[in-house]
């Protein structure tokens, strides 16, 4: 749509600008300020320049949790996006079954994150949980509390259970927006189901997939509560992701300077990767 040049439109944007500036810019300035100072107490702080950044960038804890975080977010995207599309394609389109499916699928999204952690904490236990009990009685030696691989797998499964619905709901509404005429034309051409998917449905889903991929990346990269409730980041450090390392630093050890430097680096990584996703997908669009 061609837009009209109008600088008075700023008046409409000012409330958002002020609100977000209050909640985002002021705290961000505080973080920047901390990241270059050594703070002893309220009145004793010394400028230390880039020292904290150097310290944090050389910290093996950060490297480990960053690597773990990237593997985790990668797995999340690789599983949840295709699965979400598949679920959306299978969802009934009319009648009461359509509403019922929609509501049932949305349930995990509406549960507070610590409750999600609690549910899986119980569900996965071999003595009182269905999932852990079923796996163990099938002869799989599963115990998320002592085996790092099991814990990692449980967090991933929990995330898939929790968030695939979001991708599915987005795709479902995207699919609903395709006019029936497209399908009729495809039927006349005797297009296969795969061809319909590849040339009609997938291109139409692209804009909702951008939202889906970005939201899933951002949120999985910030995951905190669920693994924290499940095992507190353990066993060992197997499910200690970036947010947790950061919180340990800032609140556990009260290393404000390094924690602030770490925060900014963390923020920049999320920003950079999201921006990469965003431009790659929109460029693919233009290249066609």
């Amino acid at each position: 749509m061609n837009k009209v040049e109008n600088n008075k439109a700023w008046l409409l944007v000012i409330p958002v600008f002020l609100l977000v500036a209050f909640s985002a810019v002021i705290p961000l300035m505080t973080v920047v300020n901390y990241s270059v100072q050594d703070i002893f107490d309220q009145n004793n702080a010394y400028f230390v320049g880039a020292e904290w950044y150097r310290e944090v960038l050389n910290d093996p804890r950060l490297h480990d949790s960053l690597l773990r975080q990237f593997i985790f977010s990668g797995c999340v995207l690789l599983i949840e996006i295709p699965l979400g599309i598949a679920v959306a394609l299978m969802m009934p389109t009319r009648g009461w079954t359509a509403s019922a499916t929609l509501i049932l699928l949305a349930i995990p999204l509406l549960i507070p994150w610590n409750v999600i952690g609690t549910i899986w904490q119980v569900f996965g236990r071999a003595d009182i949980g269905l999932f852990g009990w079923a796996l163990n009685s099938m002869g799989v030696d599963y115990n998320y509390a002592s085996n790092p691989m099991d814990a990692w797998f449980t967090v991933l499964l929990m995330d898939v259970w929790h968030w695939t619905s979001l991708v599915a709901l987005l795709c479902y509404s995207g699919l609903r927006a395709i006019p029936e005429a497209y399908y009729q034309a495809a039927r006349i051409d005797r297009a296969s189901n795969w061809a319909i998917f590849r040339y009609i449905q997938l291109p139409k889903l692209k804009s909702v997939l951008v939202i889906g991929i970005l939201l899933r990346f951002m949120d999985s990269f910030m995951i905190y509560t669920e693994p924290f409730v499940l095992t507190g980041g353990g066993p060992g450090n197997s499910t200690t992701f970036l947010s947790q390392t950061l919180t340990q630093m800032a609140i556990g050890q009260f290393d404000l300077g390094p924690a602030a430097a770490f925060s900014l680096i963390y923020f920049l990584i999320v920003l950079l990767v999201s921006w990469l996703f965003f431009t790659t997908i929109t460029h693919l669009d233009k290249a066609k």
Partner: protein
Amino acid sequence: MNFSRKKKLGISAYILFVLLPIYWLLNMSFKSNAEILGDLTFWPKDFTFDNYAVIFSDPTWYMGYVNSMTYVSLNVIITLMVALPAAYAFSRYKFAGDKQLFFWLLTNRMAPPAVFLLPFFQLYSSVGLFDTHLAVALAHCLFNVPLAVWILEGFMSGVPREIDETAYIDGYSFHTFFVKIFLPLIRSGIGVTAFFAFMFSWVELLLARTLTSVEAKPISAIMTRTIGASGIDWGVLAAAGVLTIIPGLLVIWFVRNHVAKGFALGRV
């Protein structure tokens, strides 16, 4: 087996996968602690409402729900109030710095809450908002407002601008046009946006817990009370968990048709 039967089987299997953990929570909430920790039973042997009774008889418990509902509603209202005009500006006008501003808004959706914890605590304490519902509602705007602007802009761009122009020619002021004509046209969009704002605010814990202590403490933070010296009170924990699902279910029930009709309308 034909294509549509396969589909039905697939979706049923997935729904089963979604419901099993929730069934387990529900199952547990009707059991006594002795039974939970005893043998594995697939349904409550001694069906009991005791766990729910604990929650409904203790003000610290049920006020948690009231607190959560209060700040979530506040958040949804604030989010819509500021995002609607802004989204209109982004969808209709070109103005100095519009693209930069839009991207800057989005970057706030990407800010990890862990990054903002301490500064938020200090900021809201210094302006005297600490431990109020408003503090949590405002803090949650940080990630809800950008998303709301993004979603609403898509819906608004789907409405032809001829409608705006006709209304102005007919002598409507911007205000009456916006409220009487434009908002009803993007009803679904407002429904979907409200749903997303509700969802992300209802489930968020880290900021909500940091910004409150007593007066505005959310239910999800109160749930940690069940972990006492004698171990975890699983039954009450499960009952509290079940109760946190219900408001969400009500909301999704009201917006289900809008979600189906098209989150994607303006974007496809």
